[in-house]
């Protein structure tokens, strides 16, 4: 019997879908989250997220092959269309045939997943460089528009880089933000966010950077195509060097210069709870 599975959008929730599919010995027609449940001819199942179930699935997958649990988690962070089904097929094959096919990247089930994960890792790598922070009221803040859910994978990099800072990074695409203060990091949903305009000092560094960027290019080597290949245009939107004039003007009335208070106020150093997917292997 085929059924459509609905879950809460979390990694644990997705693992629970796999748990239930095995439990009911069903074939999933689709695995979905959020939004209205569309009318289908298939049976519809709403999966409750049960951490003991998700932990069992993850343990089982991780026991099949080193790296399989991580691949599953990273696969879940990608923007692969119908990623849940692809990942389910991956798990089903792993449990049925054993891990040998993991050696062969061209395998029909594995290939779409590793391709998507490679795209995710590529985006993470680029963003480690392309993220731009502004300092406002002693807090560093930045925004990105990634295709994949990169924040969980950017977390350790930026926390190490800015160990003694307070910072946040807002993901406009997935409407969530990474907050870091006092040695603790959380990723939380955040529906709206608007960056405050710069103060004098911040505007000055933006201008200095823009000038450096414009000056370092050698005009005899002008090659916009090469720049575009290395740094696709979709990243430019959140990068200092490509903003228009207003971005470089300081806020003239200090009393208006509200700090990007929304996120800054959310800093709750000391509370260490993480709603995002936990790292595989670190079973709760």
């Amino acid at each position, binding site marked *: 019997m085929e059924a459509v599975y609905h879950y809460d959008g979390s990694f644990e929730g997705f693992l629970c879908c796999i748990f239930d599919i095995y439990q009911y010995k069903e074939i999933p027609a689709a695995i979905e989250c959020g939004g209205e449940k569309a009318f289908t001819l298939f049976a519809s199942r709403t999966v409750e997220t049960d951490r003991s179930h998700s932990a069992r699935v993850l343990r089982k997958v991780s026991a099949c092959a080193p790296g399989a649990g991580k691949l599953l988690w990273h696969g879940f962070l990608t923007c692969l269309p119908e990623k849940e089904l692809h990942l389910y097929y991956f798990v089903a094959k792993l449990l049925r045939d054993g891990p*040998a*096919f993991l*050696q*062969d*990247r*061209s*395998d029909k089930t594995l*290939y779409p997943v590793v391709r998507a994960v490679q795209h995710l890792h590529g985006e993470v*790598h*680029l963003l*480690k*460089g*392309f*993220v*731009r*922070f*502004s*300092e406002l009221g002693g807090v*560093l803040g*930045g925004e990105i528009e990634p295709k994949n859910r990169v924040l969980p994978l950017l977390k350790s*990099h930026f926390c*190490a*880089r*800015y*160990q*003694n*800072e307070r910072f946040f990074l807002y993901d406009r695409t997935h409407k969530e933000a990474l907050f870091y203060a006092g040695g603790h990091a959380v990723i939380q949903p955040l529906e709206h966010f608007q960056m405050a305009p710069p103060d004098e000092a911040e505007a000055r*560094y933006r*201008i*200095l*950077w823009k*000038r*450096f*960027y414009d*000056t*370092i*290019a*050698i*005009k*005899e*080597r*002008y*090659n*916009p*195509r*090469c*720049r575009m*290949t*290395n*740094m696709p245009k979709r990243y430019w939107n959140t*990068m*200092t*060097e490509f903003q228009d004039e207003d971005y470089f003007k300081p806020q003239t009335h200090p009393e208006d210069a509200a700090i990007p208070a929304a996120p800054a106020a959310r800093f709750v150093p000391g509370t260490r709870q993480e709603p995002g997917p936990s790292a595989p292997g670190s079973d709760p």
Partner: protein
Amino acid sequence: MDTLEKLTILTAAAKYDAACTSSGAKRSPKKGAIGSTSSAPAGCCHSFSSDGRCVTLLKVLLTNRCIYDCKYCVNRRSNDAKRAAFTPEELADLTISFYRRNYVEGLFLSSGVFRSPDDTTELMIKTLALLRERYRFNGYIHAKAIPGASPELIERLGFLADRLSVNIELPSEAGLKRLAPDKSKHSILTPMRQIQCRNRQSREELVKYRHAPRFAPAGQSTQLIVGATADTDFHILRLSQGLYDRYQLKRVFYSAYIPVVEHALLPAKDVKPPLLREHRLYQADWLLRFYGFRAEELLDESHPDFDTRVDPKCSWALAHLDFFPVEINTADYEALLRIPGVGVTSAKRILSARRVGPLHTNQLQKLGVVMKRAQYFLTASGRMADGLHFTPDSLLRGLIAAEKPLLPEPDFEQLSLFDPVTA
């Protein structure tokens, strides 16, 4: 002069240096310090300038005042250019502020020779010490060792920087004599040797004492200017090979000469920088470092320059057709690496995948093989790619067409595309 103007002058004066990577250094985060360099082994590009080059470090000169008169250089004494100098405080503040905003991975500090090599190096040390000690900066620093500076000062510099470099610039001693009369092969190679020995010694000490200070842990690099002198590709590549073999350099950078000055001994000002040639040298350099090629396999006295039409690996393959086709189900790693279109990653994937079962040509693209190039040179289970027919002539045309969209000088390339094959 305000910081913005200084930054403009001292960036423009530094931009011709090709090296801008943060690779090869691991600095794990330290308590109370700012930054780390533990990201990807390939380094981290923070932007790309409009010439397509990666921007990783705040690359500036401490000053563009110079007592030397290297003919090819915008900063030479006899050039009528506006001069500026950062104070160590100014530069440290810029570095930290850029680093915190994630504009850069660190600082690349070079300088004109101000008063003397020792005076210049002391100023550089002062700046780096300020960054490392007062600001507790734990990011990447690449510093230029000035030829002629005393060994004690270079030693200090090396304990503050992740990477040191001494630029050779001109690939032959004759070139140096004519165009950089204040420098000599000796004054360049002496600090290189010192850096190499000190770096090795420091790594040995680290094995014994975990907290021994680290001397230029990311090693050293250099830069060669291509096209300012008459040196051939063969000469340049053999020089690089020697530097990798004998000085354990991490990287040699190649910089197409851009005529910035009118001088009887240099190419005229309207000569275009030889970007394609530079590109071929980088490709060949890659073959030396990761593919097990030797310079003598790629070029020789009778073919001293690279074919502009195809990349060095294809060029080698065309001259060694008896080596092909390579059977990918049985060939060893070294043989796989010789196939045009197969790289280090795809060769490893082939080795891994063929353990699961025999491979067919239609799987190879998914393993990362560039079939447009590779198809002519391999078989899978004894068979070539389906429907592939070619003659030596169409083979060459196919290879040229496969690379064309990737070349830095598409216009230039069109001219030579239909040259007779004997070129």
